[in-house]
């Protein structure tokens, strides 16, 4: 069943959701990948489309050109900062975030950052602006830690997001994932932290993230459970990594690619 579970946010609820996740999960085979490629190709456009859960939730609406801001930098800085805290390499979140920012600045100063990158952007900020970025990131990361520390299972911050390019279809997928819980019985329960409150299409976004995470793995195996956490609203939404959710997620991605294609044609016309 493609059931969406909604719970109030608490460590107990998260632990229960991780603990009773199904042991089996759906795996994408080569046939599935080929079928998905054919469907993306059939959307009929040569425009390169970048899709993620947000584009799925907003029905393929065109997004404005990406620009770094304190809000979108906090996840990129907060994730490695939390890795420093949880591994004991930083004493507290503020120190970890400051270290991460300094690391980016050093990278840019030594010519190892491309224009448009986070390092490049941070380097060109004033001390005051950098302090705003640090304050925003500390708030995001501390909120995440506050939710996760009492969870009774082992968890680790995700190393990267899930990326998958659909061969010959000019479609790039990016699935966001913030951390992974591992339990004795299940292998992978993935969590995503989001701001604000869940919209009516939040379930579609979660299913799209589940699919992109599975596709990005060589064995094609989806997570046993995918959990969206909205700390601002104190809510958790979760879906299982079963065939129904994988199918629904894949369909929504293809539909979004189609809408994006129509939008591009409309703009070109």
């Amino acid at each position, binding site marked *: 069943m493609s059931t969406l579970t909604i719970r109030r946010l608490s460590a107990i609820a998260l632990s229960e959701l991780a603990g009773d996740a199904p042991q089996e999960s759906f795996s994408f085979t080569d046939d599935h990948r080929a079928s998905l490629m054919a469907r993306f190709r059939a959307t009929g456009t040569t425009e390169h489309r970048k899709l993620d859960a947000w584009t799925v939730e907003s029905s393929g609406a065109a997004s404005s050109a990406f620009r770094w*801001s304190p809000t979108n930098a906090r996840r990129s800085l907060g994730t490695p900062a939390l890795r420093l805290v949880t591994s004991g390499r930083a004493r507290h*979140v*503020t120190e970890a975030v400051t270290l991460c920012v300094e690391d980016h600045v050093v990278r840019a100063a030594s010519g190892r950052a491309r224009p448009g990158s986070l390092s490049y952007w941070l380097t060109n900020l004033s001390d*005051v602006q950098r302090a*705003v970025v640090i304050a*925003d990131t*500390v*708030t995001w990361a501390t909120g995440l830690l*506050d939710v996760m520390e009492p969870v009774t299972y082992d968890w680790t911050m995700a190393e990267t997001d899930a990326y998958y390019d659909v061969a010959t279809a000019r479609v790039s997928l990016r699935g966001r994932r913030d951390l992974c819980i591992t339990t004795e019985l299940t292998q992978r329960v993935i969590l995503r932290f989001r*701001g604000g409150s869940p919209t009516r299409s939040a379930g579609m976004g979660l299913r799209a993230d589940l699919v992109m995470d599975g596709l990005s793995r060589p064995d094609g195996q989806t997570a046993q459970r995918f959990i969206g956490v909205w700390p601002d609203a104190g809510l958790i939404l979760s879906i299982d990594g079963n065939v129904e959710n994988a199918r629904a997620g894949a369909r929504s991605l293809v539909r979004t690619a189609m809408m994006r294609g129509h939008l591009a044609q409309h703009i070109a016309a």
Partner: protein
Amino acid sequence: MSSATMTAEPRITDILRGNRDNRPAANRAAAGHYRQLIEGALENLTTRASTLGPLVIRAHHLDPVPVVHIGPAFPLAQLRGALISELLRLLSTGQSVRRPFEDAREAWAFSHPHSPLHRTLEECDADDLARVATDVTAHAVTLIKALGPVNPHWQPRTDVSVVQHLRGGDIVVRDRLDLVLGSSREAVASEALFDVTTSPLSSRSDAVLRYHALMETLRTGVVPLRVVALSTATGDRVQYEVDDALLARAVSELQTAIITEWNRP
């Protein structure tokens, strides 16, 4: 509901943390009860036209009689409040503030590039700007003197957003907390909320503090330890220990605000 109003001396961070040995056990059972109380009062609301969208409630709706803001000073007062909140964010990360107005203005413009208050600032002539600058600096001096150092081990979070959906999403209750210290996951109540205002303290600021406490209770599911407000206009501060009486009053005030706004023509 115990309270104490003071005029000076103890630093805000000392008040927020208090004596660690005297903290009550974390109350994780109350949030559901208060949510039920709020929802219960909303059951009999009449149906509202769906075209109106959800009713959005914020702290300023707690005013029993809405204040009509007339005159050119109001946007500038709003701007002053926004700039002081921004300074609090800088101070909470350990950033030293040497030029309060310039630093606050830069931080605010950076984090709120689309605020309508930019226009207010652009429309200021040299005299207006000098007046705002000295005003903000005076408030900043009060804040810096009163606040005290924010230890990063206290897990400071600034500008924390809270949003709660009631009556199946017909009503959205929003809040922003200037500064939150401590954690909701400890065995004893440890979260302390701080609100900075550039207006003198009044019964309205008390209601706002209660609102903050209730919203954080609903968000985390744990009752916070205490709420503290500082007026940078007068240097006065007020603190409340968060208990059942305070939260019950906050529920009643929120219900009144929702019903008033719901029935507003």
